[in-house]
């Protein structure tokens, strides 16, 4: 029943689209990180009106399955663009590529998760470090960038690593909107003969390896950063 030849032949074909999975995850992580910083700043500074609104949006995004979000964006984005057209803003509603939908959904998702992690990493930096900085005459901005942020980054890495690995795994759903990444390729190759077990096993192995590599990379970078930032492996 298990066609090991087919499994072996399919492996390189599926591996060939792994860059799509990684690309999607990295783009979503980068955009997510940028948005997350903005969100964290707005939320921490308690910017009136904006802060509670963003709080609700973040809660909503964190509280709903990504596949549902993806469909909402998939079906909602074109309608939004059509609506914008009616308002006289020129958009091309028919031209929203699936990859844009995926990046939008996954970036928003990453942004809300990362923003929470940034906030908790920020709170885990000893507040007195900030006071020490301004007491030697630094401006608040300098105190943040020179003292708080480097320490925050070291605290952030473990959580960020988890979020990124979840992101890689979650992209296994984007085949639903027609993006050819690992799962989609596995499905496509399988459909010819309706043989799925082989390709899914290939996909599983590829996912495990990718996740393992990234987990290790983050682990190493945490050790390096901790050593650079604090000259210790762990802060007390």
């Amino acid at each position, binding site marked *: 029943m298990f066609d090991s030849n087919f499994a072996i032949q399919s492996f390189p074909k599926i591996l060939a689209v792994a860059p799509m999975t990684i690309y999607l995850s990295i783009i979503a992580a980068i955009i997510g990180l940028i948005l997350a910083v903005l969100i964290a700043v707005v939320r921490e500074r308690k910017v009136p009106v904006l802060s509670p609104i963003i709080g609700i949006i973040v809660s909503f995004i964190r509280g709903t399955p990504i596949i549902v979000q993806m469909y909402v964006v998939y079906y909602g984005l074109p309608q939004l663009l059509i609506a914008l057209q009616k308002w006289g803003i020129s958009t091309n509603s028919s031209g929203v590529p699936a990859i844009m939908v995926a990046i939008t959904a996954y970036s928003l998702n990453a942004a809300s998760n990362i923003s929470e992690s940034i906030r908790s990493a920020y709170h885990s930096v000893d507040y007195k470090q900030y006071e020490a900085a*301004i007491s*030697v005459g630094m401006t608040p901005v300098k105190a943040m960038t020179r003292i708080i942020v480097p320490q925050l980054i070291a605290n952030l890495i473990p959580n960020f690593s988890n979020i990124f690995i979840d992101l890689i795994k979650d992209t296994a759903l984007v085949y639903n909107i027609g993006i050819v990444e690992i799962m989609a390729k596995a499905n496509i190759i399988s459909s010819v003969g309706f043989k799925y077990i082989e390709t899914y096993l290939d996909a599983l192995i590829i996912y495990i390896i990718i996740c393992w590599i990234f987990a290790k990379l983050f682990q190493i970078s945490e050790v390096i950063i901790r050593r650079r930032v604090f*000259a210790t492996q762990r802060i007390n």
Partner: protein
Amino acid sequence: MLLEIKSLKKKFANNTVLKGINLSIKAGEVVVIIGPSGSGKTTLLRNINFLEQADSGTMVFKDKQLNLANLSNEEILWVRRHTAMVFQNYNLFKNKTAIENISEGLIFGQNRSKKDALQLAKKALDSVGLLDKQDFYPAQLSGGQQQRIGIVRATVLNPDIVLFDEPTSALDPELVGTVLYDMKQLADQGQTMIVVTHQMSFARNVASRVVFFADGEIIETGTPSEVFDHPKNKRTKQFLSAIAEDY
């Protein structure tokens, strides 16, 4: 007068922590503040360099008149750049080496060139005999070493006043001496200091003036021998006897 504080008041929620403090300090004076835990000593220091914002009161510092309830950002920065603080738990920047801890304030607080700053920092480290530790991170230093660097970090800025908040109370007893020694050196060089401490022998030997603080008020002030040997107030007496370790 270098510093003159008038009717400084500070509340947290509905807890009035400072109930109208008046305190004047001449250049070169060493003022030691003693008093029970929770009486507001730390809060007073934090209000002097604006880590905390007072509710009302005025301050004259270096002939500049300041309304404590309404300070501009420039005024805050100006005061911070002419005062310095030494913390109970050292608070060295954990992500900076010993020498960087000292140079950061020179570079980013006083806009000196990096080269100058490092040179000054080196000299300052040398003066407390810790030059060989210049590239160590705080986590690699003992408490006593950290605190002595904390003091250097403050004094290298050449501040008009240095504020000390229980600088030795987190230290092992045999290490306390080294830090107090550095502080005495400073005092002997004419540095103006406000020191919150429980080290009565330091207060007795080094202070020009002792202030006894309780419940957010100055209860008694005078020379060390006035306050320690002839306390006028009942609460002062009570506090001194609790500290005096007899049971």
